[in-house]
């Protein structure tokens, strides 16, 4: 309650500063009007990667799924080792702001010793309403592993955006 009141007061100051800036811009050469422009901002930080860890392929094609909460489901015939995680992104900005989440729905991975794999991508939310402490979304996926998939280090990139409307 008190923090909300405080926020509103700060906000009022921000608007006042902005309004002052607008008028001061025209009179830039006339007087030394002090101005400080406080802009609304958004930050996006990546705090964990989508990790399928290490997979030992089997004689038949199968899949490994990592949910948006990071839990792994190792398909029949595969051996999965290591710690899996979902990608996590934190967004910070104006409290109450609705941010749309966009990104690729699949990614192709290329192996260091040849071979490719593909992974579908799933997002924990299509939009995030920020609170005073921001918000976050996660990206999980399902990796398709071929029968006797060529061993090696597979890497790929995928696009993720936080969009203001």
């Amino acid at each position, binding site marked *: 309650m008190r923090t909300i009141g405080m926020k509103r007061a700060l906000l009022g100051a921000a608007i006042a500063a902005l309004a002052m800036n607008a008028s001061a811009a025209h009179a830039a050469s006339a007087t030394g009007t002090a101005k400080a422009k406080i802009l609304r*901002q958004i930050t996006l930080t990546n705090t964990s990667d989508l990790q399928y860890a290490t997979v030992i392929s089997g004689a038949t094609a199968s899949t490994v799924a990592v949910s948006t909460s990071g839990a792994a489901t190792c398909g029949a015939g595969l051996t999965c080792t290591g710690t899996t995680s979902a990608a996590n992104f934190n967004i910070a900005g104006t409290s109450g702001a609705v941010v749309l989440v966009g990104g690729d729905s699949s990614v192709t991975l290329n192996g260091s010793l040849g071979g490719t794999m593909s992974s579908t991508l799933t997002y924990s939310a299509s939009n995030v309403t920020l609170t005073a402490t921001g918000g976050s979304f996660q990206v999980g996926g399902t990796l398709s592993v071929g029968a006797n998939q060529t061993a090696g280090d597979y890497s790929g990139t995928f*696009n993720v955006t936080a969009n203001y409307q």
Partner: protein
Amino acid sequence: MLRFLKGFGLFSAAVLGAAASPANAAGDLLVAPTRVVLDGSRGTEVVLNNIGSAPATYRISLEIKRMTALGGLDEIEEADANAAEKAALAMISFNPRRVTLPPNQPQVIRVGVRVPEGTPAGEYRAHMLFRAVPDAAPATDPAKPVTSGVSIALTPIYGITIPVIVRVGELGASAQIGEARVEETVDGPAFAFDLTRSGNRSVYGDIEVTRPGLAEPLLLARGIAVYPEVGQRKVSLRVPAELAAQLKGPVKIRYSEDREVGGGTIDEADRVVK
């Protein structure tokens, strides 16, 4: 003096950003402001800041996005852009397009606009994308012995987009709030209603849901737009189950203009949420 103070403004934005995010992967970023509206005669500035812990190279580009009836933004390839979208790309200029920044180093991106004579009145929009160019991922790690398994490294290329809107001529628009309901989505319960728009520009503002007799609003959602390419969109806001239950019943929904332009009411409606 002016320049110094301006620099101070940027500095404080940077400090805020750093304080808000303890995490610091390479490529993390801050963008301010979050929406740009130009009247066609003057440009503006957008600040990009590297809030990661390592130097990063950022690329800035203009993208075309179209709003969907569900309130999402579809990415449109430049080849598929219509005349108005191509006109928006042509009239908005910006500089620099690529910049390498050490940690906590802000960079001003200058945004210019030039409206060619004879451009039909209307709203022209592109979305400015800021994102870090990732370091080339090592294809092989020589230190690592080859095993029978496959190891997987997925690198996200992540960024922020903000709309850059150019308004040409006298434009107007209004919006109406439709029926409201609480619905179950795959992500959990959501408060949903439709917004119908008419006129020749977008509407943009904040949604406030209040219950008669309660001082505090039940729900507040800022920065909800209805772009000109859609006459109607659904607004679906995820809410905790507790709030979803509380929202059912009589409410007042107010859609008001952005506080920066006065906060006037766009539409207000009494609804019974089912």
